[in-house]
């Protein structure tokens, strides 16, 4: 990681330390601060309103946000909606955005006057109720529907983060643009965002467990002096390191194989880290008065969002089987598209 990225991550870490409140469902104050330091559209080209950063830098910032359980849709804005709009040649507005991949029941129609309407239902759209608009990838086009153009049925993931149903009833998109983005690219960018956030949340779960083990005294000594507990802490640290390096490597490579492997590895690691973090914390970590849940409930949600280890594993496995005995190792070292 170069110094510029490290400095940026440090800045975002300081902003989050001051403003992040994981108990909040949506944190507009933190969003404003993140916009002020210029990270909400990190990978969007400068001419489209972004910072023109690479995926690796974006992933490092997301890792910091994951560490703080930041209640803002930065992954959706920076990696998905901002990308879809900029890629189709539109300027990206400020404010929190979200994005969705249209399913088969979503229809984009052009009427006689040349105007467009969008009809259908988008399930579990992250942060829809707080977003300034939703960018939908549909039939080779990006349709941007601003807030107010759709109805939101509120839903949430295990951490209480908004995962809303967006009802589009002859919605009139503000923009409909030809797009060369593919559904596969969309899924990969979404998965990369989650993988980076998860690495950060795993750091926090591990840090909290290490701290608690040093403080909590039982049988006359801190938990940290029990070798059985030490083994748990080390395993958590190892899994966290694995997820961190995997997310960084996937962001640097940006290929489907690497992203799929990183998300699958992170999703698998998350289960271990959550289980052990709670085991070390005992009953207190299982209560709503303890902050551990902000990390673990997110990890339990995020490991299944944007494809879990079985879903990405299946795609990787298809490549592995195609590669066969002689091709498997070259596949692991070279990766490439999925």
């Amino acid at each position, binding site marked *: 990681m170069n110094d510029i990225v490290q400095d940026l991550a440090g800045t975002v870490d300081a902003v989050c330390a001051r403003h992040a409140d994981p108990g909040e469902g949506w944190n507009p104050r933190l969003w404003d601060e993140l916009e002020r330091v210029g990270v909400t559209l990190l990978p969007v080209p400068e001419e489209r309103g972004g910072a023109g950063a690479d995926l690796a830098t974006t992933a490092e910032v997301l890792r910091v946000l994951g560490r703080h359980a930041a209640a803002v849709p930065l992954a959706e804005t920076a990696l998905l909606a901002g990308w879809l709009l900029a890629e189709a040649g539109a300027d990206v507005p400020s404010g929190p955005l979200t994005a969705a991949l249209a399913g088969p029941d979503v229809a984009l129609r052009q009427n006689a006057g040349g105007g467009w309407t969008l009809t259908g239902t988008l399930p579990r759209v992250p942060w829809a109720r707080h977003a300034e608009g939703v960018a939908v990838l549909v039939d080779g086009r990006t349709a941007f529907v601003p807030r107010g153009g759709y109805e939101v049925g509120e839903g949430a993931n295990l951490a209480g983060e908004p995962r809303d149903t967006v009802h589009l009833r002859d919605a009139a998109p503000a923009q409909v643009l030809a797009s060369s983005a593919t559904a596969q690219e969309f899924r990969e960018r979404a998965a990369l965002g989650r993988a980076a956030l998860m690495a950060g949340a795993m750091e926090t779960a591990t840090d909290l467990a*290490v701290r608690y083990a040093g403080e909590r005294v039982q049988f006359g000594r801190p938990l940290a002096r029990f070798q059985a507990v030490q083994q748990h802490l080390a395993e958590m640290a190892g899994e966290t*390191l694995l997820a961190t390096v995997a997310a960084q490597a996937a962001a640097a490579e940006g290929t489907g194989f690497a992203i*799929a492997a990183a998300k699958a590895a992170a999703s698998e690691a998350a289960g271990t880290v959550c289980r052990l973090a709670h085991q070390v914390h005992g009953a207190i970590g299982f209560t709503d008065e303890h902050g551990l849940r902000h990390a673990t409930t997110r990890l339990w949600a995020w490991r299944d969002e944007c494809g879990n280890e079985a879903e990405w594993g299946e795609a990787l496995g298809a490549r592995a089987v195609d590669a066969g005995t002689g091709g498997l190792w070259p596949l692991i070292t070279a990766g490439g598209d999925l």
Partner: protein
Amino acid sequence: MPALRLDAAALPPELDGLRRDVRAFLAGEIAAGRIVPHADNWLAGWDPAFSRRLGERGWIGMTFPPEYGGSGAGSLARFVVTEELLAAGAPVAAHWIADRQSGPSLLKFGTEEQRRAYLPGIARGETSFAIGMSEPDSGSDLASVRTKAERADGGWLVNGAKMWTSGAHVADAMIALVRTGPPGESRHEGLTQLIVDLRAPGLEIRPIRLLTGEHHFNEVVLTDVFVPDGRVLGTVGDGWRQVTGELAFERSGPERILSTFPLLAAVAGRLAERGADAADRARIGMVAARLWALRRMSLAVAARLAAGDAPAVEAAAVKDLGTRFEGALIETVRLLARVEPDLASSDPLAHLLAQSVLHSPGFTLRGGTNEILRGVVAKSLLPRGDAR
């Protein structure tokens, strides 16, 4: 901030050509029937002729400077060569220890005469080494070694026994950790590394057979074995520091991830023939994902080592995760392969499965048990004193 720290690293693209060369060479070796892929072949595959062929190509001693017979290509080039050899299940045991740790230790702590005496032979694939660390009563607790060296005219007289010394019956020399003085309060004082000629008088090398009956391990009994002063490695009394430095080379390399890779490759081929359903694909894909991530971890440590850093704790974490993965891989492959493991089988999958299962207990024992490694990691996370 996390106490463990690694940044993903990429291999320099100029090593792609080297990787292609190694792959082409290995394909030729396999096609010609000169080597047969085996699991755990960095322990089991002792093939001096193969090691010499690698040496001729400059693929041993890649971290040694040219004046000692090395290619000077560096540790990342070595990373590429070793992972290609391991993934192919090639028989690398004859040069493995010398190339990985004895050579680098000689380079770091050895005298000019010692370097010239050993390094060129190692790089040619002709000189092999064994590790003389463990003893009958010292396994993970290395500081408790009791093999003793006492001053003699012009050198040292060594008495004691070393255990689990892989390849001692065929290797040329052993770097032994011996006690030359009182242990002190830390128990880390008074230890010294000696280069012991394995053909020296007074040595008795007894086989300790694996549960398969294979002979790789030995007990090396030393009775008044004379080691000249010129074969003290580094500084008398500094053995602990030197040895713990050596462990960093030993802990995080591709061999801590890839010991059972040939089995995974074989089952991928079987699935290609038989057809794989969605559940099969998910299973093998999840293993591939974890392998990919572990390799990137190992590479991140290698990049730090190449930059002159010593990420000992991170290396311990990689070895803990990687060696457990080597075993977990077998469990997945079993469920996919649905063949009975059989060392005598002509089906390579059944054969590799048998080898992998029977060798698996060693993965999480050798080079420091995983419990010890996790202790090392935990102690680094906790404030000093909290862990004791």
